[in-house]
């Protein structure tokens, strides 16, 4: 009898925990701007894979925790991740049939929007970033998308998360 209901939920939580650790792990000064938004990447994957489990409210909670970790205004990353979750939910059917390259392109746009929203809230606060550097995480994130996608897909299939 196939088990109904949430199975393997822990894998989703574990993947987000790993994303958080990667999001705060110390990096050399010159590499700081190139750090991809791990939490956003993981969120995009799970909304595509399990849109009925992971969605807007997940993005909200994840964003608040990320704000506390980063020391940002509470609501900055929450706003950004809610938008990312919303867009991923709207696009997930198309994304599933895209090739990995097309997916990476869409992920670049999604991450770019994430960065843009964060930048807006930061401007409200009075801090900003130099020029277009704030988009660099979107580039690095899109480049790392295949790695994230294949790894999480492998794990999801192995542990039969649904």
């Amino acid at each position, binding site marked *: 009898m196939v088990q109904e209901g949430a199975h393997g939920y822990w894998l989703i939580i574990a993947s987000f925990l790993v994303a958080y650790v990667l999001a705060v792990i110390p*990096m050399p000064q010159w590499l700081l701007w190139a750090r991809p938004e791990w939490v956003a990447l993981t969120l995009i994957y799970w909304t595509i894979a399990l849109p009925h489990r992971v*969605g807007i409210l997940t993005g909200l909670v994840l964003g608040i925790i990320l704000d506390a970790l980063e020391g940002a205004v509470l609501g900055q990353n929450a706003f950004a991740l809610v938008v990312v979750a919303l867009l991923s939910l709207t696009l997930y059917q198309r994304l599933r049939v895209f090739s990995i390259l097309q997916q990476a392109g869409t992920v670049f746009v999604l991450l770019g929007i994430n960065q843009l929203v964060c930048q807006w809230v930061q401007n409200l606060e009075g*801090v*900003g970033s130099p020029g277009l550097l704030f988009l660099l995480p979107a580039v690095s994130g899109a480049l790392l998308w295949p790695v994230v996608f294949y790894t999480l897909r492998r794990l999801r299939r192995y542990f039969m998360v649904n």
Partner: protein
Amino acid sequence: MGLRLLLAVFVVVGLIIADLRFNSLESTRSVLDTLGAPIYWVADLPTRFGEWGELHIQSRARALEENERLTLENLVLQGRSQQMAALQAENVRLRALLNSTALLRDDVRVAEVLGVSPDPVRHQLVLNKGELDGVFVGQPIIDADGLVGQIVEVSAATSRALLITDATHSIPVQVNRNGVRAIAEGTGSLGSLEVRHVSATTDIQVGDLLETSGLGGRFPGGYPVAVVTVIERDPGKLFAHVLAKPSAALDRSRHVLLIFASQDSRRIEPASGPLQATPETTTDAIEDKTPDATPDTQEP
């Protein structure tokens, strides 16, 4: 989905307004910070492994060399602080003669840097001392070379400090040489502070040491902040453009000192009789500066 979206938007906008405009979410942040501390701890592990490895996998010759160097450095520093005790006693006497308020000595405690805020725009440190250790919001922090910043958030066992180079931070300073007062603001870049509203005729030079002036009541006076590096006096502008490089090793300090403001019971009394440092002041001055390193470094 529409309903959830609406709820999410309300919550998000509410949070942003509450945090930005009304600053009313400090207790929430405190709780979230406590929950987030393990993540910083895990993220810190690779660095700790590296440091542990560097410490233990060392040739014996290097270890002996390091030992000798530290012994000599310690000797020099203790020699210097002998003189400091005498100068301190003289200062106290002179103040008493001028009927000024007595000199107060600050207490320091060591804290370890658990992590750095990952956002390159924000200059924040996460420290391993929190409310349970008596840390409070607004507490100043220094390292071996100068002022580092102040505490902005406190949770149970950790706290967050804002560096002086963060774009939202300002600190009242004065020039060591002549007492000229100014305000040093963070620029968002780790290597420079901007000294604002310095008129073109003010006596300030490249190489001047800027120290805390004690005005504003938040930072005690006398701690080195930065050294002036650039002065541009444009005749067409009202103020000179002055940049300074922070004295503290902001991007490299692993340990910082939390300053606990002195209480009256710790007031340094003028020594009885002509200029002599009393034994208590000498040993106190040296003893108090020794960090209580042993319990801290044992922490996982």
